[in-house]
């Protein structure tokens, strides 16, 4: 045990002073990734807010503002004439939508421009309100209640809790993926890096068992990966809470998320990370240099991304076999737990799959670590 602790201390000191590891474990997940997410979202958010408040410019083609349209001037609309129905008027920012009239109003908008799309939605809504107001006035004139307009009233009652958003699933998947990739820098440094700097031979000749060395290295890797994903989770939470409160409601459906099973979620993340740490260790022990180890890690990144893509494409048709597929089972199980669904059978399958995975890859990593060929490969 003392040997393992000594190895952990040494690996920790060595890793915390490595700029590459710090960049991968702290800078990227805490600053860069949330920024990547925040920028496009805040841009969209700002556009939505702008359209809500700004004056919408309606281009009129072969028509003059009629009495109905003139009432819209009070509702923050402005009108200008255009000589054709051309998307370029919208693209250049001269107008938001174009209006022409035959038997009814034709509203032309640019589907690729979020501002034009939102302007069209606001205009449609305002036209509906206008129609309703006219009808109400007419009913009032003949002494009838406005309730006649809505002869049938409806009330929407959801039969089940709103499902978690696909954006949230993507975030979970990203978190799991990062917990593995974030720790890969540490394990590469602790194995292939030691070999490259010629310290591995010294380490294995010291009076400490190879099991202790390997366990010490894996624990350090795990700690870095876990801290890295926890920091990323915090960074995303802060980003959503303080910078994009609206987006957090619309994208994450946070109201539908339950944190009742958070301890089980943490356990699943730990098991996922540990099993992949073992796999990465096995590969990087064999590598003779950091560069070679990084090359071996590439397919692992694809292994992690594939289930995420699969989940996005077939999230509604998933069967019970998904619980046997590493990474995919974590994402599905965490998603289920987040919406408050707990199935002990599925959870047991997930845990057993990972325990088997951890056992097999630890044995394999240890075998590599005891092999002269792997350790002395240079």
């Amino acid at each position, binding site marked *: 045990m*003392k*040997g393992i*602790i*000594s190895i952990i*201390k*040494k690996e920790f*000191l*060595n890793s915390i*002073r*490595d700029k590459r590891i710090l960049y991968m474990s702290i800078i990227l997940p805490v600053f860069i990734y949330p920024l990547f997410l925040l920028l496009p979202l805040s841009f969209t958010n700002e556009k939505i807010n702008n359209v809500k408040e700004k004056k919408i410019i309606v281009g009129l083609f072969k028509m003059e503002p009629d009495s109905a349209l003139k009432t819209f001037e009070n509702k923050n609309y402005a009108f200008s004439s255009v000589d054709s129905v051309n998307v370029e008027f919208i693209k250049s920012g001269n107008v938001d939508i174009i209006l022409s009239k035959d038997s009814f109003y034709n509203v032309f908008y640019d589907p690729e421009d979020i501002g034009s799309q939102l302007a069209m939605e606001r205009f449609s809504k305002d036209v509906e309100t206008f129609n309703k107001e006219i009808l109400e006035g007419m009913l009032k004139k003949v002494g009838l209640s406005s309730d006649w307009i809505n002869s049938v009233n409806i009330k929407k009652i959801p039969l089940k809790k709103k499902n978690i958003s696909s954006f949230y699933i993507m975030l979970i998947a990203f978190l799991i993926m990062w917990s593995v990739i974030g720790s890969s820098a540490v394990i590469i440094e602790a194995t292939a890096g030691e070999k490259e*700097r*010629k*310290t591995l*031979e*010294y380490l*294995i*000749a*010291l*009076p*400490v*068992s190879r099991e202790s060395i390997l366990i010490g290295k894996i624990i350090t890797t795990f700690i870095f990966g876990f801290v890295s994903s926890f920091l990323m989770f915090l960074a995303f939470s802060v980003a959503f809470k303080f910078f994009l409160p609206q987006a957090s409601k619309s994208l994450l459906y946070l109201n539908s998320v339950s944190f009742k099973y958070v301890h089980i979620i943490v356990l699943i993340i730990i098991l996922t990370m540990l099993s992949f740490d073992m796999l990465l260790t096995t590969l990087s022990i064999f590598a003779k240099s950091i560069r070679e180890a990084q090359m071996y890690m590439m397919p692992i990144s694809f292994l992690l991304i594939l289930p995420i893509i699969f989940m996005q494409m077939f999230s509604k048709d998933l069967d019970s076999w998904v619980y046997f597929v590493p990474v995919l089972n974590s994402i599905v199980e965490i998603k289920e737990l987040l919406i408050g669904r707990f199935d002990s059978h599925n959870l047991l399958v997930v845990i057993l799959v990972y325990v088997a995975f951890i056992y097999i890859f630890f044995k394999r990593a240890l075998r590599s670590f005891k092999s*002269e060929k792997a*350790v*002395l490969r240079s």
Partner: protein
Amino acid sequence: MLRIEGLSKAFGNANVLKNVSFSMKDGRITAFLGPNGAGKTTTIRALLGIIRPDTGKFYMDTTPYIPEQVNMRKNISFVLENASLYERLNGYENMYFVAQIWQLEKSMAEERIKKLFNELEIDYGKKPVKLYSKGMKQKLILARALLPSCRYLILDEPLSGIDIPTKHIIREVLKKEKNNGKAIMYSTHILEEVEELAQEVIVIAHGEIRFKGSINEFRSIDNDIETAFMRLVV
């Protein structure tokens, strides 16, 4: 005394060690001589449990020594050829890691580190080892080997590529360790070092032991030790 009997090792079709037998005596420095590729490093690797020999046995006095057993390895400290330090750690941290592996008490470890740093004139500062000079690094590598105060000390090319003042300091420390009763094996191909330090000489070439005896017996082969060495290895 550390004894090696019938050590053989092959890598594929290449027989790197062929029935190697010799011993290291307490209170003596044994020079382990041989040209490049003779099998010196493979012998040391086998002794330290880095590689598993095909045949051969090791004894500490009369007790079988099994390199795979961690507790037995606690009796041997070493300097490996082209050894490196943990470059992001400072000198003290490098030393303290070794102290923890040998499970030295904190106060005792600190006292020994201080003593060795003074003796070998090593910086006690907090700068990482990557900023040390080559000579300073080599002294630290030796200090790391001397820290656990083991009965057996194995040194593979400890003085290669360092300046004369540093060599002088290290030689003096090794003489002192020998006088304290340690059995030291000193692998080198620099013959002047052998003349100055060794009492026993082992010559290995093509994986075979070509000579084992005292320094005087080695000198008796030829007045010029370089000629003596060449006669043995060719």
